[in-house]
């Protein structure tokens, strides 16, 4: 009778351990493990005591057929006390686990809230960054004037301006040289005038000589030539005046020659522009064109890369937000753990109610056994449902909250 009861008790505890192992398997860490370990130790102790009692009883049966009622009642009491102790222990452990579950719930909720805020902030920062980038890109592409001229246009304009400048220089040189040759011709013309003046000079001196001869002839004619002498004198003074006028003209033309010389100097300055600085400018502009093209190419590549980054950041944030569902899943898992703990508590309470001196002990034990089966079946069912339900957080799309 006693051995049968022990066996039933053992079966009950083995089922409890299975239940416990199930809790452990559900992944609720060290606390479950400790609890399982404790219960297992107590159970081992219990088995040890019961076996001792059994041996003791057997010896008594063999050697002393009439065992005393007193030792039997002590043994029952011990079993009862032990079962009560186990129940208390299970209660204590379950309460600790319950507290830890609640604490974990709070921690997970707080952390999730923090992460969610952080993701939202991250996304707004990313948007802000993108806007700033766009501004930088726009600024980079123009040189900051009202027409929003691009750097490339500016360099091309400079190049064109330089070409026009060179053309102006060359045209000026050409025109100046042409003017120069006209001036040379003018100078030659003035030389011709000098020759003409020399002839005029010659005429004047011949006239002067002629007037002198006339005056001599008039003097020789005496009174009759007096009137002619006056005419001869006038002619002579005319020839002197003519020579003076000639000299004045020569002086004026000489001045003109000097002015033409000055003109030549000016034209020379106008026509001769040193091209070395222009050459350097041209080279600078050419280099600039190449550089601007290179910078534009690099900038375009960077801009393209930047444009690709923003969706990537958004995707990453979405993945993060989706991963925050772990709060719900963890909550569910923890809640289901509470159900398992309740089962443990109720079974342990029933064990503590066992009274070996009770006549209905068989019924009580059968009741416990049934209860154990019932709990095991239900737990299996719940477990199966759970494995069907979502086990990964990657599935499903989640909007930002």
């Amino acid at each position, binding site marked *: 009778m006693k051995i049968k009861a022990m066996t039933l008790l053992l079966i009950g505890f083995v089922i409890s351990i299975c239940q416990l192992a199930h809790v452990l398997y559900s992944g609720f860490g060290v606390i479950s493990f400790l609890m399982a370990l404790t219960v297992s130790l107590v159970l081992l102790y219990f088995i040890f005591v019961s076996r001792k009692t059994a041996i003791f009883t057997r010896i008594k049966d063999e050697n002393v057929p009439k065992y005393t009622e007193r030792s039997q009642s002590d043994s029952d009491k011990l079993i009862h006390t032990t079962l009560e102790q186990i129940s208390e222990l299970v209660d204590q452990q379950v309460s600790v686990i319950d507290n830890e579950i609640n604490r974990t719930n709070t921690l997970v909720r707080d952390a999730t809230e923090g992460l969610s805020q952080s993701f939202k902030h991250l996304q707004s920062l990313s948007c802000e960054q993108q806007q700033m980038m766009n501004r930088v890109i726009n600024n980079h592409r123009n040189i900051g004037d009202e027409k929003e001229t691009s750097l490339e246009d500016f360099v091309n304009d400079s190049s064109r301006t330089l070409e026009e400048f*060179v053309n102006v220089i*060359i045209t*000026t040189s050409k025109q100046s*040289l042409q003017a120069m040759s006209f001036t040379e011709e003018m100078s030659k013309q003035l030389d011709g005038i000098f020759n003409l003046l020399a002839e005029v000079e010659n005429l004047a001196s011949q006239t002067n000589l002629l007037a002198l001869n006339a005056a001599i002839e008039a003097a020789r004619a005496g009174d009759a030539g007096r009137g002619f002498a006056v005419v001869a004198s006038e002619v002579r003074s005319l020839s002197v005046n003519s020579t003076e006028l000639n000299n004045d003209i020569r002086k004026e033309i000489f001045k003109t020659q000097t002015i033409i010389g000055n003109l030549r100097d000016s034209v020379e300055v106008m*026509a001769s522009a040193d091209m070395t600085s222009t050459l350097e400018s041209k080279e600078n502009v050419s280099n600039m064109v190449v550089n601007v093209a290179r910078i534009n190419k690099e900038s375009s590549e960077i801009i393209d890369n930047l444009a690709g980054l923003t969706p990537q950041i958004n995707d990453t944030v979405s993945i993060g937000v989706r991963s925050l569902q772990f709060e719900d899943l963890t909550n569910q898992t923890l809640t289901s753990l509470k159900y398992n703990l309740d089962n443990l508590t109720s079974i342990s309470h029933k064990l503590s109610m066992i009274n070996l001196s009770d006549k209905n002990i068989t019924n009580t034990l059968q009741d416990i056994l049934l209860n154990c089966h019932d709990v095991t079946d239900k737990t299996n069912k719940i477990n199966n449902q759970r494995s069907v339900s979502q086990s990964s957080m990657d599935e499903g799309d989640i909007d930002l909250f």
Partner: protein
Amino acid sequence: MAIKVNLSKENNQLIIRIEERFDFSLHQAFRDAYINVKTNNTEFVLDLSSTSYMDSSALGMILLLKDHAEVLSGTVTIRKPSDTVNKILEIAQFHRLLKIEY
């Protein structure tokens, strides 16, 4: 004299060779070198292989030579310009106006 002129009647060709500096000081001599050539279809060759420097007045002189050649339905060819001189010709975009032999 920094200008050497070689007129070849058979080839209908006038070669003007400029040595060292090609600037305003040569304008009279340069003009004198070609102004009396009145033969139609003359090829004016400007040998710049010994020219080390050229300013804008040289470019003006070349354009005047070109005008003179065009009146005679002739051509102007620039022969073997040095690197420096060639750069100046490029800036002036003379390769669009004249034949340049390297």
